[in-house]
């Protein structure tokens, strides 16, 4: 029996508009492999090829060796018997991957019963044991709808690994989670290799790759750009793309130009307080945002960051305290959203959406051309629908749409948390430049403290019910 748990030889994928170059790897017991790359680089397709769950229309070629057994990559059906028993897949966005009408414990117990083969009572006990060990004792009998992102991730992990599969493939395990929960998930994943299994992780987050260690493979448009041990690849990357990827970490971004003197605030608030569902979010909070200034708000998810922004825009009432806005500009208060496609009606071409805006506010069309160039958007994008262009391009289009109204205040609610690192850096740099140029105050919300520390003029930390004005020089260790 070869020492390798999982071996892939010249694994390649063809299909409409998708080609993944031949890729090989070998994972022995305790081995870790991380596929690092941006959206569309084909990293999740490789994982699905290994599992044998490629969508219709895509064909895999090459050979796979799992636990000594040889499989042809093209024949996905043969590997179905291994699902849950030898190969476990931790899906993206686990809160969608759990059955909304079935309680958490039942979804874990069914893996114990039908995959691991335990009888009903033993499976039930094992499920409760898993959940308690993951700190979910109270969440066991809840429905997925009642669980937070982090809790759902751990329930999905328990369900996926209940079958005792030695090889675990985790697809974007930290997507949409805030910093503390991201670290908890990384630690959870590390258990499999520590217990003699093999871990394949797919992520776009460099920090996660660094913490996991083991072999790192950097992918771009379906081709391997660089591979090697994490310590070496993630500190001194040889390839040019690797370096750009590293440069995209907030810690290495250049500091933006200083604000200069503060003019009269575009929006200021005094003694704000808000409670939600009986829990107090914040009390007697006062702040002011002056034109061109970038104010950062950071804190764990659910601490009321978005609610604060909505209050400044006047969309959510405050429990008490008052808000003063620069009155002369009716459409001056705009918002950027976390999930760009959700902020657009998917049925219309972008050109028509722009026409509506121009016709509504009688703007002059001449301003659009230069602004699009500035945002790096070329004209043929206008003929497409929001769903047919990338997340980065759509977010930049959202910025274009907002800037046409010359806003005086912009609330950016985690605008780049779903984007890839390079696009994230590019988008935020553009946002800061344009805010400075157009003297537009920005409140930037993010769950990534390093990002907030790097580009914001002032920082507000929410979380333990009190407002803490954080020192400008944030200690990098906290990142």
């Amino acid at each position, binding site marked *: 029996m070869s020492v390798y748990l999982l071996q892939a030889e010249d694994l390649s994928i063809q299909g409409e508009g998708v080609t993944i170059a031949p890729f090989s790897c070998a994972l022995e017991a305790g081995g870790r492999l991380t596929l690092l790359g941006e959206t569309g680089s084909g990293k999740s397709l490789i994982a699905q090829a290994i599992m044998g769950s490629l969508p219709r229309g895509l064909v895999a070629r090459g050979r796979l060796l799992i636990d000594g057994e040889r499989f042809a990559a093209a024949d996905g059906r043969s590997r179905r018997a291994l699902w849950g028993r030898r190969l476990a897949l931790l899906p993206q966005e686990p809160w969608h991957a759990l059955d909304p009408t079935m309680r958490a414990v039942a979804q874990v117990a069914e893996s114990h019963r039908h995959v691991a083969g335990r009888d009903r009572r033993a499976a039930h006990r094992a499920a409760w044991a898993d959940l308690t060990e993951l700190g979910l004792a109270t969440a066991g009998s809840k429905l997925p709808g009642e669980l937070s992102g982090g809790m759902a991730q751990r329930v999905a992990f328990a369900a996926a690994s209940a079958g005792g599969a030695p090889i675990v493939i985790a697809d974007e395990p930290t997507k949409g989670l805030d910093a503390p929960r991201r670290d908890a998930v990384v630690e959870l994943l590390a258990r499999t290799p520590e217990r003699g299994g093999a871990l394949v992780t797919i992520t776009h987050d460099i920090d996660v790759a660094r913490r996991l260690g083991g072999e790192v493979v950097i992918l771009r448009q379906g081709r391997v750009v660089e591979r090697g041990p994490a310590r070496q690849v993630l500190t001194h990357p040889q390839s040019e793309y690797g370096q750009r990827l590293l440069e995209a970490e907030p810690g290495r971004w250049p500091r933006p130009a200083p604000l200069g003197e503060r003019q009269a605030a575009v929006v200021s608030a005094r003694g704000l307080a808000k409670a939600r569902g009986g829990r107090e979010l914040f009390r007697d909070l006062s702040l002011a945002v002056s034109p061109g200034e970038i104010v950062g708000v950071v804190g764990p998810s659910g601490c009321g960051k978005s609610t604060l922004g909505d209050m400044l825009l006047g969309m959510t009432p405050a429990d008490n305290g008052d808000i003063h806005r620069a009155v002369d500009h009716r*459409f001056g*208060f*705009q*918002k950027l959203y976390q999930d760009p496609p959700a902020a657009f009606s998917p049925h219309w071409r972008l050109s028509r959406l722009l026409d*509506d805006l121009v016709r*509504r506010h009688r703007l002059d069309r001449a301003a659009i051309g230069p602004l699009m160039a500035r945002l790096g958007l070329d004209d043929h994008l206008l003929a497409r629908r929001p769903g047919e262009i990338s997340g980065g391009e759509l977010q930049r289009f959202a910025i274009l*749409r907002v800037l046409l*109204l010359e806003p005086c205040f912009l609330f950016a609610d985690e605008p780049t948390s779903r984007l890839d690192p390079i696009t994230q850096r590019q988008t935020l740099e553009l946002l800061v430049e344009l805010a400075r140029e157009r003297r537009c105050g920005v409140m930037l919300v993010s769950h990534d403290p390093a990002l907030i520390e790097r580009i914001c003029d002032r920082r507000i930390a929410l979380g333990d019910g009190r407002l803490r004005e954080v020192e400008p020089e944030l200690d990098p260790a906290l990142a």
Partner: protein
Amino acid sequence: MTTLTLHATRRWLPALSPRQGLGAVLLALLLAFAWLVPWLFDADPARQQMTRILQLPSLAEPLGTDHLGRSLLARLAAAVQLSFGMALLSVASAAIPGVILGVMAGWRGGWLDRVLGSLADACLALPGLLLVLLLVAIAPGNFWALYVGISLVLWIEYFRVVRARTRILVASPQLEASRLLGFGPLALFRRHLWPELAPQVLTLAAFGAASAILAMAALGFVSVGLRPPTAELGLMMIELLPYYHEAPWAMAQPILVLFVLVLSLNLLAGRDPR
């Protein structure tokens, strides 16, 4: 891709998929048949020839004659014109209030939602058949009152579907963003709500039209609402029913026309966007 998309729908409806294209073509053919026949053949739908009843389709009479010797071609064309008009009226008189109230209930929520909701539940409990029978009795022989009566019950389906969809959409960021950009309620409805609701509403319309005509046939079956010699799809089925053994092809024609109507409206409604 069909070339028949009307300009009005271009602004309101996204482009038609091949499936919808087929539906539009079928519908256009049916309407062309209804409006061209009286123009090409000058046969009078009410002229009877007692000596030539239930004739097989022949060159002179392409669709044969019915139990009174009347030309089925002329009658079917007249029936399609009348029934389409009234099915459209019935669907519109059900869809328009249904959609408007649905959007209002979904958008505003709160007490308005509860009031409209309980009104809809109460109306759904009204035996629709009874209302139609009473309306027919009040205005005997008046088809229009009858078709509106039929839609008294149908509007609730539109209301429920639209309210559910609107509730989800109103909470979504796309509407919030557009509202911040300064778009008014009508623009929001046209750009965000209608394209999402259109497939579902049109599917309901397809079945609504068919059930309106079938309700007419059901009433004719218990000899209520008859008004000779008008040719109406539902009533033609009843008139030709006794001759189902002798001339099955005669009774099959109105049913076939209704089937093409249902299928074309169904295809036109398009696949559910989900």
